[in-house]
């Protein structure tokens, strides 16, 4: 293959994101014969620390240093990449909030194809790359064929690829800052407002009774609270419950909410989107209770029960209470 492969490195406070290694593995799936080049934008000592840390996993690291890139504003990074990247290249980007901001517009500026949220890379077929995506919250997957003859921007789902263990690559850092040119944009970063913890810190709970859209209405949240109380845990939830204003944002588990690490996680009426699962760490015992036997949550749960949570939860609460009274 003649298309050169690049990976975009997301980093914070001088530390490269876990996706740096995952994207290197994904790049090898596309073409094992060429090592991918890492591309890193930022400023100052933090940027240099990140570049140095990448020398173990990448043979070549391109660095774009600019004072106004100290905070990663996708509007500025896009301009820089469009100037620095060679035509027809393939760029892999982590599909998280920065990648969603950066990549669709970048593909237009590079006149390249764009595929988002890729979970698997199948093979090259001539000028086409075959990839796997998921649709409808992971209920179905699709093979996608992407024409890479004029390059491609591919957003890769964090966690979908496993970083490879390999001998230190002893990479060299190449400064590409000059080529990035003047960077200005119609969007300016102001500040980051840190999320409030709320009344209960769900990150510290050993038992979580977590509810999703299946709870159906705000009044029903009480049946989950009763079970959580009987079990000595707390209630948490998935995104649709917060969107509907049935529970506070501080109770949301997921990539845009809290990261939790309980011993036991009861997923009640939760379909199990990858954004939700990304917030569950520490390999807890996951119990899924859902009316839909095909809900993706059953693929990751340890134990599954097909039932209506509105009936199941009160019945379980009664049994747990009976047990502690005995």
């Amino acid at each position: 293959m003649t298309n050169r492969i690049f990976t975009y490195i997301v980093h914070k406070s001088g530390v490269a994101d876990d996706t740096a290694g995952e994207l290197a593995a994904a790049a090898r799936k596309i073409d094992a014969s060429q090592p991918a080049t890492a591309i890193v934008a930022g400023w100052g000592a933090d940027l240099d620390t990140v570049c140095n840390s990448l020398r173990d996993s990448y043979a070549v690291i391109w660095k774009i240093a600019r004072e106004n890139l100290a905070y990663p504003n996708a509007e500025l990074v896009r301009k820089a990449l469009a100037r620095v990247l060679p035509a027809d290249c393939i760029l892999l980007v982590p599909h998280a909030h920065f990648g969603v901001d950066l990549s669709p517009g970048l593909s237009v500026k590079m006149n390249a194809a764009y595929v988002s949220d890729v979970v698997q890379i199948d093979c090259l077929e001539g000028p086409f790359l075959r990839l796997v995506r998921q649709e409808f919250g992971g209920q179905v997957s699709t093979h996608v064929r992407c024409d890479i003859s004029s390059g491609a921007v591919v957003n890769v789902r964090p966690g979908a690829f496993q970083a490879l263990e390999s001998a230190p690559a002893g990479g060299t850092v190449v400064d590409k800052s000059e080529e990035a040119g003047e960077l200005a944009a119609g969007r300016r970063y102001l500040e980051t407002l840190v999320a409030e913890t709320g009344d209960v810190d769900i990150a510290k709970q050993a038992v979580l009774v977590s509810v999703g859209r299946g709870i159906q209405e705000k009044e029903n949240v009480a049946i989950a609270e009763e079970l959580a109380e009987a079990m000595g845990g707390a209630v948490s939830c998935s995104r649709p419950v917060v969107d509907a204003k049935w529970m506070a944002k501080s109770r949301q588990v997921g990539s845009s909410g809290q990261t939790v690490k309980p011993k036991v996680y009861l997923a009640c009426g939760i379909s199990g989107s990858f954004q939700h699962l990304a917030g569950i760490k520490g390999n807890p015992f996951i119990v899924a209770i859902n009316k839909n036997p095909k809900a993706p949550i059953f693929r990751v749960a340890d134990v599954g029960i097909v039932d209506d949570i509105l009936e199941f939860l009160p019945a379980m609460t009664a049994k747990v209470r009976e047990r502690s009274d005995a």
Partner: protein
Amino acid sequence: MEILVCARRVPDTSENEIELNSAGNDIERDDLVYSVNEPDNYAVEEALQIAGRAGGEVTVVTVGGDEDEEILRREMAMGANHGVLLSDEAFAGSDGRGIATILKDYVAKNHYDLILTGVQAEDGGAQVGGMLAAMLDYPFASLVNSIEVLEGRKLKIGREIEGGNKEMNEIDLPCVLSIQTGINEPRYVGMRGIRQVASVNIPTLGALDLGMPPDAAGEAAAKVKRLDYFVPEQGAGAEMLAGEREEVIDKLIELVRVKGGLQ
């Protein structure tokens, strides 16, 4: 402030289980309930609230066929002033880039200060808004969960980033924003509202009306093509507890106790 909202009609996953058809080349579309892509409702609600504060009108646009007109009427019943359907045989088979190109040609013939999309569609890639902005050379922000109109043709916006944190930005108008769910509470649409807009004329514009060359969108221009649908492998999957509810609960309580979830 003239606001355009780009909306889409999609299978409603809260009403349907998504399954494969027998040929395995598509999902089973018979008996599917379709509705407005949920994030698009939040975008329309946000547009209505901004227009209510800052003045101006809200237009909802979609790319599709006659069957997609119903979602334009639904959003007009919410309060949008205009609906526009962009429809042409030449648009069939468009990828995200093609849809963005069609919208770009529509926007170029009109005047909007602010363009909103939903954050993503159930079967989409969170891509059209960012592409449209790049084609228009407008600034863009994704995952927007708050909007405040400032003096001097600017907005102060919040973006939802990791851990529930919020990234605050200032952005110049005109711009394109993709709206995250939960930014507001979309208003309820009753049958009365739907009836009131049932006979309103919705203009339909095709490639010729937009001055588009025949190969600018549609299947021939698509660089990205979906080949099939399949159900991902289950992996080990969960151990399913079946039987009478009382028995299931007894088994579950014992399992949870062993894992340290009950004293």
